[in-house]
């Protein structure tokens, strides 16, 4: 069992009223799954993904990640947990503009305190694997959207996470680029990486092994 959500509630208070963003979410994820979260805009997809990724908190319920109770551990410990096991991919890539491709890839390793030689080897490996060795000294602004997302995925993968969380990874790409990225996800999943993606597109959701549908913060 990779992770387990139990009666998760999340709300905000607005004008004296409690507005629920997530309402009684329960599900489990096993290692090796490829899950797609679907639902209309504002249904809480991204919020759920952020809760799973521990970037956002929740107000009620229990969350076990690799048998660690996420809801009751300290921030530092939590940071260690997601730094170790989770990689993020964003719709708008979120690469650091001031850093080159190579340096962007290197950054997660810095926070994990890898040695210099090791980092170099891993970065080289990743550049090789994604076929972007020629671009390693370019800045993000010099790449196309698909290439940027490729770097984003490479960055998420570089520290060998157990789980990849992708928030509409193809949202900013054209269909051809999108298909390539999805193929890549499929391939990664076959290699054993667990993936949870948020998507609007039925076609992309079909790559996954299971679909979770959300409406107004509730699973249906």
């Amino acid at each position, binding site marked *: 069992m990779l992770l387990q959500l139990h009666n998760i509630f999340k709300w905000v208070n607005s004008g004296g009223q409690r507005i629920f963003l997530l309402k009684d979410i329960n599900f489990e994820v096993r290692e090796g799954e490829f899950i797609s979260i679907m639902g209309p805009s504002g249904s809480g997809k991204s919020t759920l993904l952020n809760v799973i990724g521990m970037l956002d908190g929740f107000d009620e319920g229990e969350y076990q990640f690799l048998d660690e109770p996420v809801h009751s551990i300290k*921030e530092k410990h939590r940071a*260690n947990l997601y730094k170790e096991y989770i990689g993020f991919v964003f719709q708008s890539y979120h690469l650091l503009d001031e*850093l080159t491709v190579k340096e962007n890839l290197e950054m997660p390793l810095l926070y994990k305190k890898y040695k210099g030689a090791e980092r170099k080897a891993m970065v080289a490996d990743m550049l090789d694997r994604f076929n972007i060795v020629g671009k390693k000294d370019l800045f993000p602004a010099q790449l196309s959207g698909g290439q940027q997302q490729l770097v984003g995925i490479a960055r998420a993968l570089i520290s060998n996470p157990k789980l990849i969380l992708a928030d509409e990874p193809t949202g900013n790409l054209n269909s051809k680029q999108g298909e390539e990225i999805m193929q890549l996800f499929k391939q990664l999943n076959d290699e054993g990486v667990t993936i949870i993606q948020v998507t609007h597109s039925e076609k992309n959701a079909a790559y996954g092994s299971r679909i979770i549908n959300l409406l107004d913060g509730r699973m249906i």
Partner: protein
Amino acid sequence: MFKNYLKIAWRNLLKNKVFTTANLIGLSTAFAIAILLGMTAMFDLSFDQFHKKKDTVYQLYLSNQTPKGTTISVVNPIPLAPALKEEVPGIKHIARSLSQDALITYQNKDFDLDAEYVDNDFFTLFSYPVIIGNTQEPIPNKNSIALSESTAKKIFGDGNAIGETIFLQQGREQVPFTVASILKDTPVNTSVDFDIVIPFESHREYLPNIDIWDSYNHLVYLELEEGVSLSQFEKNTRSFTNQHYENQIESMVRDGALPDTNGQYKQFHLLPYSDVAFVSYATGIAIVNRTFPYLILGIALLIIFIACANFINMNIALGEKRLKEIGMRKTLGAVKRQLFGQFWLESILIFVVSIVLGLIAAHLLLDPFKTLFNTQATLSNLSKPVILVGFFLSLLLITLIAGGYPALILSKLNAIRALKGKWEMGKNRLRNGLIVLQFVIAIVLISGTIVLHGQIQYMRNKDLGYNKEQVVSIPLNGKMDSYRVVQLLREELKNNPNILSVSGADNNLGRGRDGSLSTSKWRFDYKERSIGTNVLTVDHDYLKTLDIPLVSGRSFSKEYGADSLSIVINETMAKELNEKDPLSVKIQEDEATYTIIGVLKDYHFQNINREIEPLTLFMNTDWDLYYAYVKVSPAAIAKSYDAINAAWGKVEPQAEFLGSFLDENVDRTFRREKTMATIITSGSVLGILLSCIGLFAMSMLVVTQRTKEIGVRKVIGASVSSITLLLTKDFLKLVGFAFLIAAPLAWYFLNNWLESYPFRITLSPLYFAMAGFLAMLIAFLTVGARTIRAASANPVKSLRTE
């Protein structure tokens, strides 16, 4: 990791060129000036602190109860020190010390030197190291003297000085002395500096006054025996004082003076030598006041504060552009501490660069700074371990606050919010608070500048009661009899139509190029009352030369023959005598009876920051003159000055001509005020400049943030001026608010300061309004430049990005 941080920092600095430049210029200027000012303050504070016994050696002073209150005197009668040592227990070492000019002759060459007449214990008390000669007793007998290293070089060249005989001019005779030792030159930060040291017993006044208790001319320093406390010693001296000053105490009692709380009319006190350079006795108690150096230090800190406030504001504002980076780093596993470290490191980077630039600038500016601020300070004043460590600690603290605060705020942001570029916080309140504070400082400093200059201008233009523009005073520093010099000058210049009159006196007006100042006082009994007056010995034509009008009576005149028993007094003295007709007054002293022959209009014979005191003029050729006065016609002033110089060369070829116009002399007396004015002026210029750099950067940011709003408003139909006003208003409001805080503050400080001047400008609200208006105007120009451009931009362009 570190390398990555540096890389990111470097690229960010390059990306935000305007802000980086603004920060670097602001901070490095602030550091440069702060270093220079700090150096000046440290130099001022270091005065006399090099003496090893500075805390255990004391200066003796005497407080006297007079009918008008307590006064303090530091000068003492000659028999005091030996008697004190003999009769009062607890004194380990005691030394007398008297500073005077000395005219030395060696092989027919004259040297005008700063002399210090001292007892031998002087060298036990103070740290003036001996280079050659007896370390314990540099002047072993009364015919020996000690020279400073550079003076010995001046007199003897590279030849041997020890054992040589030089001649000291004493009155009209030349007394031989043997050079016994060579001393290290006195450091610049000493209150007592000398070229030559002469035994106290060899002073010409020593023998005549050896048992006289009512003639004072020198300072006394002493060290107590171990275990003797100050209060113990002061108590010990009481019966001694009552016995030796009996006559004076009697007349004090008769005049109605009240004793102090211990029943004493005269009480000796001790002042630690480390405080001597900072003490003021004006109010009847010793007040040790280090305000001036601390004021300088304060201004330095304020300037750093202004620059740091800019830094904080810009950093927080720029943080908005880096939200994505922060969010991304957080999702990649950075914790708060790491982000804080990263942002702090960036701040330190900027600060280190600024300090290096500041140090370089300070070094380059050192020489002009020293001339401008008239200080002898050097950067080595700052290179003491304590100061350096303090400097680095405070630097760390400054970067921690200035860099750490934005770092803290940025590192605390929630990852998701940061990624979405949302940032809700009360940042404007801090920003506005800092801007207001900056302008409060700037406005206070500007008001200070205006008022200070006003006061200096007032003092400079004030009618002092004599003609200061047309009169040259010349220190009589030659060997010849002073009356003869004046007479020869008179004859020499007689045929020059531009020279109107020549006279002499035993004191200068203002402070001449010889730098010396002296006061002579006389106390006598008149109708059972003790009356004190300043005295001045003058030559014929003194009043005519200086254009001092008579109120009644006549001046000294050749027609009346010997006027040596006649005196002329000023109006204040006449008031002091309290007679209907002062011309009828006869003053009896010892065998002589003095007759008042004239009353002159009050004039400022002392510094202008003092009330006019009673003054009595004598004309007695037994008493030397020390200054000649020459009045020239207003036409061809420079030519006349040269003529006087030439005449002097003929009369006294050996002595240096140090003549100067009296208005220069008066200017010299408020050198301190002028230094203060320069410091505050530069502080205020820098303050407003730095505040405006900050304001400019902020206005740029605000304009960028509101580009869309500006576009929409223009499309709807707003005019350029209304938009400019809209954007500028917020900033001007802050300046206005700062003015409201600054004006009372400035009024309070300046009023306090002016109160120490009996003759001063009245503090009108106009000064503050002017300062406020100036700040407002400068702020408007700064912000306006940016906003007008934004307001007149084509709205289509700003909206197209949507």
